[in-house]
């Protein structure tokens, strides 16, 4: 449901990022579905899709996995990019720089995300044409990503930056993601990639994008929207302490892995000989991991204790820009008592401020007869349907009697589909 005036290019960037993510999910999950069915058949029914002894190929698994797996990394990073775009604009008190270009970049990343999977497989011997093509596509996808990084920097440029926990996480996202992006561009060259393949350098790279990037962005999002969801603020002192533990711990753990990888330390092997000069960097990495663990514990303490003891949040604690800050915290079940009408990007901001930044009289909550709000009935069929599908999946994983569990899952799926479809609205 979209409110009046909410045209596509007035949607918050987080919504755009989520939309692109959904397209990626819909198109990439069927591929891993087929691959998982094939490997389940190999395990359960004795087929040989991935067994060279029966004419199958292991490389086939790699292809199918990465046709899903590469869009999947964008599925992980795009929502975080959207969150960071919201947070940076809010805490720099500036509109997001190059909003339209950010939208197109997200779409371009989603599109190109399907054309780069084989850069995970340069060393399998794809032949010169495929290697050249996937190498070029990988370099190409760095362009919309780079555009985003410059736009985030420009959003902060000249802004009135407030350093809250949420904005610290968002800013660190930009820095860490840039580092991971740079080592990613190195991997787009097959020559360099062949040197890095299966070494700790790769481990460093993807942790910088998905941990320093995605996870930091998600933490920022939690601190940012927690007051909206629960009506209470998270503890900022504890939050900032956690941030620094994470930031230092993360870099201590993963930066040395660049050196270890270039020095030849292989990934996926749990041990190494003690005389290879790898001990010091590995020791640092371990210490960093302990710091992160303390930070993680702090986060959970903060999250749960703030539920009860956190400072009460106003409806708009961060002086936000988007519509969710116009309704009470926590939001009522019906969200908006009266559907808002949108005339600008960052519409809530424009309802609070004039063009030259003067504060307008605060908009009032509309008075609506609550009994006139119609809420849809809550149905238990969807959750039963999801359970049925989980049963089918479980059946494929369980070694003995798996088929029986899968059949129960099928029965449950069919029953709840009918229950849902024939339910009175």
């Amino acid at each position, binding site marked *: 449901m979209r409110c009046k005036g909410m045209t596509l290019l007035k949607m918050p960037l987080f919504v755009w990022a989520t939309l692109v993510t959904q397209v990626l999910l819909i*198109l990439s999950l*069927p591929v891993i579905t087929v691959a998982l069915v094939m490997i389940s058949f190999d395990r359960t029914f004795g087929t040989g*899709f991935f067994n060279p002894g029966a*004419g199958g190929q292991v490389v086939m698994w790699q292809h199918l996995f990465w046709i899903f797996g590469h869009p999947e990394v964008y599925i992980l990073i795009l929502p975080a990019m959207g969150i960071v775009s919201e947070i940076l604009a809010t805490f720099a008190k500036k509109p997001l720089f190059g909003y339209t270009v950010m939208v197109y970049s997200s779409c371009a990343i989603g599109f190109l995300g399907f054309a780069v999977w084989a850069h995970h497989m340069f060393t399998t011997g794809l032949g010169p044409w495929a290697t050249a093509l996937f190498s070029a596509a990988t370099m190409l996808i760095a362009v919309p990503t780079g555009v985003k990084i410059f736009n985030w920097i420009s959003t902060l440029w000249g802004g009135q930056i407030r350093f809250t926990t949420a904005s610290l996480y968002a800013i660190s996202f930009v820095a860490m993601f840039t580092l991971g992006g740079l080592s990613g561009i190195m991997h787009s060259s097959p020559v360099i990639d062949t040197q890095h393949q299966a070494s700790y350098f790769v481990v460093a790279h993807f942790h910088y994008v998905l941990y320093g990037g995605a996870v930091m962005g998600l933490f920022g999002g939690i601190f940012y929207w927690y007051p909206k969801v629960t009506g209470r603020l998270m503890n900022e002192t504890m939050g900032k302490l956690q941030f620094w533990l994470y930031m230092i711990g993360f870099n201590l753990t993963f930066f040395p892995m660049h050196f270890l990888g270039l020095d030849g330390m292989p990934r996926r092997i749990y041990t190494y000989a003690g005389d290879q000069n790898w001990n010091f960097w590995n020791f640092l990495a371990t210490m960093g991991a302990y710091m992160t663990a303390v930070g993680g514990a702090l986060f959970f303490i903060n999250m749960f204790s703030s539920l009860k003891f956190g400072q009460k949040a106003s409806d708009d604690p961060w002086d936000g820009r988007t519509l969710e800050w116009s309704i009470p915290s926590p939001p009522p079940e019906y969200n908006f008592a009266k559907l808002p009408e949108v005339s600008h990007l960052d519409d809530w901001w424009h309802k609070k401020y004039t063009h030259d930044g003067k504060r307008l009289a605060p908009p009032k909550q509309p008075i609506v007869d609550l009994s006139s709000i119609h809420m849809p009935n809550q149905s238990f069929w969807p959750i039963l349907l999801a359970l049925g599908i989980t049963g089918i999946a479980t059946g494929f994983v369980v070694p003995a009697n798996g088929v029986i569990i899968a059949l129960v899952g099928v029965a449950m799926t069919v029953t709840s589909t009918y229950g849902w479809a024939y339910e009175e609205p």
Partner: protein
Amino acid sequence: MSEAAHAHHTTTGVENRKFAMWVLIASECFLFGTLIANYLVNKGRSISGPTPQQIYEIDITTLSTFDLLMSSVAMVLALHYCKEKDLRKFQFWTFMVVLGGVIFLGFQYHEFSTFVLKNGLGLSTNIFGSSFYLLTGCHGAHVTVGVLWMTSILLTSLIKGQEWFNSEIVEVAGLYWHFVDVVWIIIFTVVYLFVYV
């Protein structure tokens, strides 16, 4: 814009259930695309027989393809008479869709049992067989879902009679049915006809 879109205003301009079906079809394109690609890669990689050339019965498969195409025609007519609110003809053509689907599944049962019993091609005999059964079996499962769906529509119409002419639901089911049919045309071409190329 269709009548349905006027009846319920949606932000996409397309009725929500129909939009959801188009999204599912997009997803299914990747599902069948993967299965077909897998078949093409593996059909010639078997270490032992039987091979496609030895066992396909093209005349019988042509008949079953014709049957499935005709059930799509029946689907078009069923939707037409649903919109015309002609109960008897709507029910008749819906029944014909179901019948076409069931006959197709009968052909597939015949094909699979001949392959297994006469030609000795089980699921795990060779990699051509594995890829073939996975692809056509997945398509057969989709036809089965379609048959169940159309049967449910037929039964609902028989029970509710004149008050039930939900052309939105019939149209969504029709989209699904035509898609499954189109996938079969691709499978028929790529799997059965390419043997002669």
